[in-house]
């Protein structure tokens, strides 16, 4: 059970990362092999190419309670599949606008180019992002959603209560 007292002390953001198999995932492995210590808040999902990242994955991650989403791909020109990273970049730019409309701060969703040799960059990017998201505080979409659900339920109840006497 999480200790509520401890939780209040310091907010620990949950960040979901999508790392491409060839560059960023390999870089994360390199960071491991080099025993670079970084914040434990990022949980990595391996995909073959950053081009596989469907904007829905990012939205779903936020909806499921992520405080941030990090996407790691190969540097421009280095994609194992020629140009998957450019496709991702295109989608990312569009998604950024959507996130803005949804009121999700820009820093919560980040796209980084990290090559297989840049174990160090994995560390700095993750630490930096964790710090920024920590400062933003929890996003808590699931909690907000359930609050809204509650509210709707209450409203429904109220409507029903009002409606009953009319029909009686």
């Amino acid at each position, binding site marked *: *059970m*999480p200790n509520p007292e401890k939780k209040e002390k310091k907010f620990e953001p*949950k960040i*979901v990362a999508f790392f491409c*198999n*060839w*560059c960023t*995932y*390999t870089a*994360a*492995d390199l*960071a*491991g*092999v080099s*025993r*670079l*210590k*970084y914040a*434990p808040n990022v*949980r*990595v*999902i*391996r*995909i*073959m*190419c950053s*081009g*596989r*990242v*469907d*904007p*829905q*994955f990012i939205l*779903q*991650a936020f*909806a*499921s*309670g*992520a405080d941030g989403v990090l996407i790691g791909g190969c540097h421009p*020109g*280095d994609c*194992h*599949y*020629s*140009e*998957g990273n450019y*496709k991702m970049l295109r*989608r990312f730019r569009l998604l950024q606008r959507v996130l803005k409309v949804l009121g999700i701060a820009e820093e919560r969703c980040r796209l980084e180019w990290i*090559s*297989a*040799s*840049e*174990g*160090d960059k994995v*560390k700095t990017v993750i630490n930096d992002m964790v710090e920024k998201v920590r400062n933003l505080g929890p996003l808590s979409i699931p909690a907000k959603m359930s609050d809204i659900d509650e509210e709707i339920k209450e409203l429904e109840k109220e409507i029903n209560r009002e409606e009953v006497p009319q029909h009686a």
Partner: protein
Amino acid sequence: MSNTNGNGTIKGITPRIGFYICHCGHNIAAMVDVEKVQKFVASLPGVVVSRDYKYMCSDPGQELVQKDIKELKLNRIVVASCSPLLHEHTFRRAVEKAGLNPFFFHMVNIRENVSWVTDNREQATAKANALARAAIQRVFFHKSLETKKVPINPDVLIVGGGIAGIHAALTIANAGKHVYLVEREPTIGGHMAMFDKTFPTLDCAACILTPKMSSVKNHPNITLWTYSEVEKVEGFVGNYKVNIKRKPRYVIEELCVGCMDCIDACIYKEAKYPDEFNQGLSKRKPIYIPFPQATPQVVLFDPETCIDFKSHRCKKTCIEACDRKAIDLKQVPEYKEINVGTVILATGFKTYDAEKSPQYGYKKFPNVFTSLEIERIVNASGPTNGEVLTKEGNIPKSVGIIHCVGSRDEKAHKWCSRVCCMYSLKLAHLIKEHTGAEVYNFYIDMRTPGKGYEEFYDKLMNEGVHFVRGRVAEVTDWALIPEEEHKLTIRVEDTLIGVVRRIPVDMVVLAVGMEPREDAQDIRRMFNISCSTEGFFLERHPKLAPVSTFTDGIFIAGGCQGPRDIPDSVAQAGAAAAEALSLISAGSIELEPNTASIIESFCSGCKSCIPLCPYSAISFNEGTKKAVINEALCKGCGTCVAACPSGSIIQNLFEDEQIFSEIDGLLKFAGIELEEMEVVNA
């Protein structure tokens, strides 16, 4: 979002998951509470068995999984251990041996991604829990898949004709397979051809190299293309299509016999252009041959310096002199397209540019030489016919050799170039032998690991070569005492006696280190491989796959992978050749079945996926008005899957529901929904 329904079945199949967490000795267990993770996973729905074991990748570890599959009728396996890039295949094979489709397996990386990068046990355990849960939820949705086999074209391309490329080419050609050896320079031989003697045996480099060079030239199974460069690479393991540009020599290779009559006949009576092979220490004519044993024995023109190319007003005495009519000044680049199954990159290294360390005075003082220049100077066929002379033409009475120039230096390269200590010893021996001079070696640490290397160092000490431990501060011509007049003074702190010394010498040799070639990044892009932080080509695994890369069918050997000496380069070249031959012998390779396919009934025919595919694997069926993916062309990037607006494309191993369930599993708080899970289980 929940992917499991109330009774824990998916599409009618009840998952029976086996979970195994590896201690990896202390590598994981010291930071992750494996027992806690094991217990936590045991409480998750669908998990039939959860175990922890010291070494999962060991035979007993694999047998544990296999036994459980059979006895407990497991239909899904999750192993939490190291990176899937390391052992995914090991466990898939183990699962397959037990009779389960290998793709019902999923691997969780809790070593590189958790224990090695976290310094808090509680947090590491929580992270491992989250990753394990994600895998358990994901593996529900795994499907039985068939691997696709592709045939391996038995022809091999080797890029780079240094000692590594030569050795690999001969090994493969001797096995009866065809090799295309492509070399950028007009001759093969690489750096080794420039050396005089080789350490520690002091056999002459040319004597051991040139027979191999001519074997390459004469081998019926080797197509040798010198003065050629790879322009484009397409395809994948077993079937690469490579475009090669053969630069014009302005001499017809098949006709030239290397008699060099044309060189004698050149309108320039005196050679006046710097000779690249001799490091610019001698001159050549616009028509030249790099060195007497150049292979192939074919002359070439340098259009930058030839009068005819510049003004078209030369008498062309060279053409007249050639009785075989081999000279063709109108030659144009020739483009070749070849198909090969595997590629070995042996593109070599570059020496550190000593001008970047100005304290050593290279190019500032004429008597400061790089080691490669001295190699040529001591060489009997070099610019001075083997006589070691200062720029003034005198025999030096004292010579200083400065180690670690550009290596082990925060301002240049941090790495040790591995060969400099040994070649400095060799050069010390040769200089002493040629001149009788006092030779000083200025070193930080003497690094002589290798067969007969330490003994060679011993021999040099007995020969009376001086060794001063300390990094040289500067080389200066500023004389403080009469003995230093007209000399170069090496200022160094002798750290063994704790005194700053000034040692005047006539000649300074800079033991320059090894660095990646300038265009290593372009080459790696072309062949779709990676470079390490230093810029050398990155191997698949530093210990277990040292000549393989992350791209199947592309192997690396020699100095392009990192600093190494001749014996190591040859050993690596042999290993790379063996790897290529093993693929060729197998005849085919199994590809990861992560290709995409279209669910026709969902496809709206919007065509948005078609331009996204970099391999043109998607086409449009005008009859059905649906997109079609050619699985043979699909490489499994998943870009089309992410873009499909109707969700009608699925990528094997990376299906939407697999990833969604992984996201979900990662984000659930351990603890909170344990109760939830118990309810589900009940």
